[in-house]
């Protein structure tokens, strides 16, 4: 089953309102309020420990906030759904540390990421359709892993694992992609191709990209949000954010 792409309708794809997460009294997110438009490519930057990954944990159901609300599109209450339900609703996530199924082949990794109803009993008898095979071949092509299709994912280089994980996200065909530090550990060439790939996705999907590499952010960013101590410090286009004295002080100046 390949889901027909939903046409982006005007409005917000993600709305976080006053979200607070504390770990033993320490506030990783402190009244975070943030919204992302449908079809937008949003970059999120901020120093280590600013709460970027925690924000993704909240959106994907891994961490429940103490306070606040999180909405997907106009009507999906993310705080009421489990992790698999959120994934099924159309949110995909790439982890900060590349996370793939190391003892399976590249092809099998992509197969498991196919969008569709997922149940043990169905998967016991599931067979790949011709269209699905073609889809996997396309993704192998896009991610440059065609020659690696039969290799165990555990044998891939760090950069290739990052790409495989991005490929798995694409198989999932999410409406909203959360991408945590996609170019960490990539060569300049791989970084460049990743930037192109993410830009090409932005038309049909909404993306939130967390990244440390400022050159990379500059190459893809339209709108940038700066997080600091669990809150939004600044927000706007790259030029404005870069010259914001607050931002320069806590982050860029360093």
């Amino acid at each position, binding site marked *: 089953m390949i889901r027909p792409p939903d046409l982006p309708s005007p409005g917000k794809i993600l709305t976080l309102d006053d979200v607070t997460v504390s770990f033993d009294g320490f506030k990783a997110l402190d009244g975070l309020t943030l919204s992302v438009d449908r079809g937008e490519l949003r970059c999120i930057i901020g120093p280590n420990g600013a709460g970027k990954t925690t924000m993704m944990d909240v959106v994907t159901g891994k961490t429940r906030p103490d306070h606040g609300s999180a909405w997907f599109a106009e009507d999906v209450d993310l705080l009421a759904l489990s992790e*698999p339900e959120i994934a099924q609703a159309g949110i995909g996530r790439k*982890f900060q540390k590349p996370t793939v199924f190391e003892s399976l082949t590249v092809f099998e990794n992509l197969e*498991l990421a196919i969008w569709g109803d997922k149940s043990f009993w169905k998967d016991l008898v599931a067979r790949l359709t011709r269209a699905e095979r073609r889809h996997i071949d396309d993704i192998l092509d896009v991610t440059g892993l065609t020659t690696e299709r039969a290799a165990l994912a555990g044998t891939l280089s760090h950069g290739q694992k990052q790409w495989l994980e991005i490929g798995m996200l694409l198989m999932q065909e999410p409406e909203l992609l959360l991408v945590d530090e996609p170019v960490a550990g990539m060569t300049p060439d791989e970084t460049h191709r990743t930037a192109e790939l993410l830009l090409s996705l932005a038309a049909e999907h909404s993306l939130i990209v967390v990244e440390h590499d400022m050159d990379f952010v500059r190459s893809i960013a339209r709108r940038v949000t700066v997080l600091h101590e669990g809150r939004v410090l600044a927000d706007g286009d790259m030029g404005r954010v870069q010259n914001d004295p607050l931002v320069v002080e806590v982050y860029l100046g360093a």
Partner: protein
Amino acid sequence: MLTRVVRVGRRLWTAWDADRGGTVLLVLLAGVAIAVPALNQLAPASSALHLSTYSLSLIGKYLCYAMLALALDLVWGYGGILSLGHAAFFALGGYAMGMYLMRQIGSRGVYGDPILPDFMVFLNWQKLPWFWVGFNHFWFALLVIAALPALLALLFGWFAFRSRVTGVYFSIMTQALSYALMLAFFRNDMGFGGNNGFTDFKDILGFDLHEDGTRVMLVVVTAAALAASYLACRAIVGSRAGRLFRAIRDAESRARFLGYRVESYKLWVFVFSAVLAGIAGALYVPQVGIINPGEFAPINSIEAVIWVAVGGRGTLFGAAAGAVLVNYAKTYFTGALPELWLYALGALFVLVTLFLPRGLVGLGASRRRAVQAGAAAPVIWALGSHVGVSLGSKLK
């Protein structure tokens, strides 16, 4: 005609090439199913080729252990779920079969009661407890043999997997479950014969259990059940569900964020594995002629883990081979030096973990992936505590 032969030949070659170890296992089992009846029934008792009654029960026992190993390898070797409670599922299946066999005795027991088994008469019970009703029917016993381990695994697994209990914690919980069941079955008032359990069986489905012919049939049925279990496990492992099960071991959260309810995948494989263990136990009891609470003993689960590790974890056929080899060794060892068996077993496990992480079947193959030594820790811990306890009781 010739093209047909070629086509069949090619198909056989593909099957062999895709799973050489498994094909060897299936061929060996077919060999057992043919050779055992021939050597026992056709070879004259005086001949060197004759298979004795004792050998029959040994072979039957090894095959049941191989099935238990297969069940364990499915969850541990593929899903990384180290169950130290599989002996409990095995014992429950065995008890269900034992209840049928006890009721088959009828009035031939020592006390001659047509309904009540001897131990109930001995305890002055007047009436069959409700949970013994129905066990005079073979089909009912079969149902319970599968359903009881399945229910226990479903209940236990549902809580454990939903609460995301993993690793050593899961192992210890399964061990505790098994231990609790053992204590319960030791009690006379539970209605399962207390520490004596069930024995002195007479017949199964009308066939005399003391006849070699019946025992030959039991060996053949066990070999067939093992072959069928192997094929079922292979089908599961080769399905998308099986790949996801393996994927969960590698990266559980990745699987969740792809939209899989991972606990349900773990649960169903665990339940299936428990059913296999139960069937193995049910086949075991008529062949060894006894079932008692000792079958629930934690050490039994640990031994099963060692068979799998020795044979080769995550290969299915390796687990089955490991069970047969280790138990063959045990039969000789316990004859010669019974005191030292546990130490030998422990040493074997440590050696295999350190030097043969992929087990004996990994000897010839390339080292593609090593089993994490971390998985060995709970086994060594459990084995160590058991050796400690047995030492302690000797010193008293």
